[in-house]
């Protein structure tokens, strides 16, 4: 049992304990360490100014991915190595990306620049030769208000791959790996006492090393918040909307990040992050893959997990319409045992789910599409990338000889939870697969939902989309297989 977080920053070892672990990592960098190259703008993971590289042990190697330090708390960083903008200028030499950005006028006010530099440097960890599409994709999580992005793209494209050192070359891994491997099986329990407006509160943090420990811990502290990627709860905490006294981190929990095909199922571990799923889906679920590419940003996808998206119960959770129409199942575990729940029965109301306070999602499983099934997913948002959906839809069709045999329709953003449109589905069953059918279904779909007007869109827009998306589905299916 340890009471501190072990982490490395730019190759330097830190043991952090007490109050300091309960702060966003960007604050720790800027306020405690004076590493002010990392900027904070939005404190909610939507601008990328705070981007750093997160080195995590995978197969006895440190693998570096970009993440938002503003929505990653120090307690999430156990046994990891973070490289900040200060770490990229190794031994006084500029990183190739830095030099290229100078040469291409890629900075104007400069405030977003460190984030872009780190994100661009991170791209070279995985791929040497980058296309323009790669560059745009890799920098989707970073906002710039001055340049219009073009000179940033040009700078990254101009970098000669052989001039980019790998992070491992700059920061030798072996000592860190050894250190991490010695400590990663430790359970961590830490706490500190805080006085908030006169009242004393004890903030507790647990990082159990086994599933059993975690379930026991959750039984003992049913109000505790589980944190894996933390890409939603950290935002809520930064904005003062939630104040969990007890945090249980899943970061050191082994064996929960699997993705495998087994018998009739695709089985997904709860800790699988979106970047891994995106990679996996490319062939297995190409339609899902498309929507995952506009899921958050690379920084978010690198740490956010599928179980987090499900448990967070957002009515516009990007993955949910897909899981709904695929009849995915969720395994819930607690000290009392395990049970499987159909995702369609998982949500009871706004942010209200089937999960009890003692349960943890331990697996998600679904069957791949069969030969007669056609499935389409839609996400409408104000901005195509790095935006929360206004409206989402998943539609799964089984059609034979021009007749709809079966159809499942799930809409998000039109009510307090993601909805199946059962009346519209029933109407469509056994109808001709033709434009007129979907036109009528569209009108019906409008009546089946009760969206609200909010900051993202009006109720009217959502109603119109509910109607139109069925037509869009019809046209999209026709395009693939002329009707």
């Amino acid at each position, binding site marked *: 049992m340890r009471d501190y977080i072990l982490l490395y920053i730019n190759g330097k070892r830190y043991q952090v304990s007490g109050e300091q672990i309960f702060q966003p990592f960007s604050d720790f960098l800027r306020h405690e360490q004076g590493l002010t190259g990392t900027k904070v703008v939005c404190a909610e993971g939507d601008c990328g100014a705070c981007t750093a590289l997160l080195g995590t042990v995978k197969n006895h190697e440190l693998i570096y991915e970009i993440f938002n330090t503003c929505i990653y708390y120090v307690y999430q960083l156990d046994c990891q190595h973070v490289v900040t903008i200060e770490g990229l200028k190794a031994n006084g030499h500029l990183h190739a990306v830095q030099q290229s950005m100078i040469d291409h*006028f890629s900075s104007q006010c*400069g405030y977003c620049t460190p984030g872009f530099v780190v994100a661009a440097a991170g791209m070279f960890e995985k791929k040497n030769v980058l296309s323009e599409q790669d560059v745009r994709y890799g920098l989707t999580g970073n906002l710039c*208000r*001055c340049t219009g992005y073009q000179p940033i793209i040009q700078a990254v494209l101009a970098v000669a791959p052989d001039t980019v050192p790998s992070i491992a070359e700059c920061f030798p891994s072996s000592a860190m790996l050894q250190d991490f491997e010695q400590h990663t099986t430790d359970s961590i329990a830490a706490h500190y006492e805080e006085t908030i407006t006169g009242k004393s509160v004890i903030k507790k943090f647990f990082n159990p090393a086994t599933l059993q420990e975690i379930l026991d811990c959750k039984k003992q502290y049913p109000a505790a918040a589980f944190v894996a990627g933390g890409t939603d709860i950290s935002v809520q905490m930064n904005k003062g909307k939630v104040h969990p006294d007890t945090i249980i981190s899943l970061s050191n929990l082994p064996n929960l990040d699997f993705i495998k095909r087994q018998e009739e199922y695709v089985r997904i571990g709860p800790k699988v992050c979106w970047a891994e799923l995106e990679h996996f889906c490319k062939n297995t679920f190409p339609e899902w893959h498309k929507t995952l590419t506009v899921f958050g940003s690379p920084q978010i996808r690198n740490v956010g997990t599928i179980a987090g998206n499900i448990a967070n119960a957002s009515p516009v959770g990007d993955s949910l319409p897909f899981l709904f129409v695929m009849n995915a199942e969720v395994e819930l575990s607690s000290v009392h045992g395990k049970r499987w729940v159909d995702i369609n029965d998982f949500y009871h109301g706004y942010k209200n789910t089937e999960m009890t306070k003692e349960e943890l999602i331990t697996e998600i499983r679904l069957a791949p599409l069969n030969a007669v099934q056609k499935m389409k997913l839609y996400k409408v948002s104000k901005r195509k990338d790095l935006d929360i959906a206004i409206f989402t839809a998943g539609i799964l069709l089984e059609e034979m000889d021009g007749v709809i045999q079966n159809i499942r329709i799930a809409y998000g953003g039109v009510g307090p939870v993601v909805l199946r449109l059962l009346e519209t589905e029933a109407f469509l069953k056994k109808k001709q697969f033709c434009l007129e059918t979907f036109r009528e279904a569209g009108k019906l779909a409008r009546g089946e939902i009760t969206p609200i007007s909010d900051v993202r869109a009006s109720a009217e827009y959502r109603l119109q989309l509910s109607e*139109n998306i069925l037509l869009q589905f019809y046209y999209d299916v026709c395009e693939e297989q002329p009707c």
Partner: protein
Amino acid sequence: MMAAIGKKIPHDSALGHVTGEALYIDDIPFGKNELVVDFVGSPCAHGKIKSIDFEKAKQIEGIVGIYTHQDIPGHNLFGPIIVDEYFLAEELCEYLGQPIVIIAAKNWKAVKQAKQLVNIQIEAYEPVFSIEQACKKNQYLGETRQIKRGNVQNAFKKSECVLEDTFYSNGQDHFYLESQAAIAYPGETNELTIISSTQNPTETQQVVAELLDIGQHEVVSICKRMGGAFGGKETQAAIPAMMAALAAYHTKCPARVVYTKDDDMKITGKRHPYQTHYKAAFTREGQITGLRVDFYSNGGAFADLSTAIMERSMLHAENAYYIPHIEINGTVCKTNFPPNTAFRGFGGPQSMAVIENIIEEISIYLKKDAYDIRTLNCYGVKKNNVTPYGQIVKNTILPEIFEELSQTADYKQRYAAVKHFNQQKSTKLKGIAMTPIKFGISFTTKFLNQGNALVNIYKDGTVQVSTGGTEMGQGLNTKIRQIVADEFGIDHNHVKLMPTSTEKNNNTSPTAASAGTDLNGLAAMDACQKIRAGLIGLASRHFASVNEGLAPAPECIRLEGGYVFDERLPHKKLKFSELIMAAYQERISLGARGFYTTPGVDFNRETGKGNPFFYYTTGCCVAEVLIERLTGNLTIERIDLLMDIGESINPGIDRGQIEGGLIQGIGWLTNEELRYQDNGALLSYSPTTYKIPNIQDLPKIFHVNTIKNPHHTINVRRSKAVGEPPFMLSLSVWAAVKNALSYVADNQIPKLRIPATSEEILRRITQYTSKAQTDLESAESEISLLSSLTNTEKTRVLPV
């Protein structure tokens, strides 16, 4: 070594930017005893303060001081044009979040807790949010102003075609990445140094002095750089600076204010929303014969720069077109929003949008290509070249720009292709448009057109330059560095731009109106020339040679490539640093102050006539867009842009201004939407909900070029201002959307507001394609309140 001007010399802070070493306000390490400062603002948009209770807040550990307007030793009332804005609300609260109470503490944690415990009781009054409501209540800021020429009523009477309607454009948040921030350092006796993220250090100095009732000479106001500004730190940096100054004054400790992004977006002013009534008369060929526009802007609670912004709107109402009979009226409405303020374009975008909208409507009505309407009405070279306010449009090449860009962008063929595409059965729709800009350069307030600079040469031949211009990323420092380097013929690396400080440069104008390089560059050049005079005199004596029969000849002295020489003896060279050392020993001054005033600018507000501008920056842009008919989703397929920016001092910097300005404009026109709760609280107050352009929103094809203009022979090194103008070229994207809608609008003229979000686009498509005619009352407004979102607009038919 070649001259520095005209070269792509990197931004002078680029190295600091890419390494993260460049310091912004909140990166400065905390000093001993330094305090953090925050505020509690009005809980409602309009009301009277009944009581303020912060006794409990005071008890929180770490709280050092809590202040209200009663703790202000000097003035609480300020304003750059009309003095009407309270720094801390006294009795009346006029916008939600308006600062009332200032809290100084040892750490942010204490501040957060204390804020929760400040109890402000307000008697709520009915707030006014829209222009329509403000007009009903006769709530205005300043007077309605007018610019007119000819007889517009007559033009309407005589005209074959008349078109009339109302146009709406929403606001825009600056979304500079570095939020408002300032640190105040108290000195001995009354002295105070304030470091602030401001475009206007002089104003910061002045308001702080007035606030504390001390002389301006007691205050030093410094700005090293800003993490973006775009106009948002021209006046609105004043409030955070005053907060820091007040806390420092009372505690005698350094005091730091750093707004969170959320607070910054909630309480600072934005681009003005506009509602404009327009009536245009035109011939069957599309020649505009008369135009009346009544601009109404939503000014927010206080005047700020609103009247000057309205003035610029009025001076750009005709954009690049000659309109013989014209009447332009401008009114600023007082509402219960934070005071709206300067934002790139300064009212120009809102008014140019109106005329470009009119042109699109004329083209739809006449079933002509809008390009032909534009070129038909474009300002001429020999005739049709006088603006409504009487200034002659000279030395511009707009017709050439139209012609060249239409060629290189393949406009006519693509226009036909778009038409063809839209005739096919598809779930997609295309649109294309080419729009021009003619943007006047100079402050329309005459006295602001001045700049001063200080140039100091040190004994090793290196140079420090200080001007009143501030660096917000636009590259001002880099350009001045090049100008100064060339004046002395030295490497630009030997010239350094110093933080802007009121100690070095007094009574400076804000860095705004795109005129930063013009004013400060020429002031720096003036200072250099004063020093040069002494150096050249010395050098002429040095190179004079009795043996070779050469008398001292200052006109033959050259400063080039880091050397000085007499062109009659080019092989005999002296290093610049040697010349400087010699000058020092000869007791010749190696420092000078320069001064510049823009010649010939004068505009009479009363008559609406004069020459407000030194020159115009012009350009054109073609945009092609793709729309998903069933979702309204918009993609920009291609952009081709051509601008006349004179002889560029730094093509790398200028290209950045053009591309960045254009993309920022596209944000205003498409995705950036300010949405409010019905109580006036901004809902889209962070990047989660306020969507500025992302890297993926860049057009697939993006061509940016400049054109030579041999007629432009004035201004610093024959350059032109470039900061704001490209912003307005983004109107081509909006016009292309309008063009696309014309293909589904049957025989109606499709309406389209700003911003053209996917929601707005789908609403219009549905409106024009659905069989059921919507016949609800018009609920259009220049602002977006939640409750007004569900109403649909009555379809309008063009009155002829």
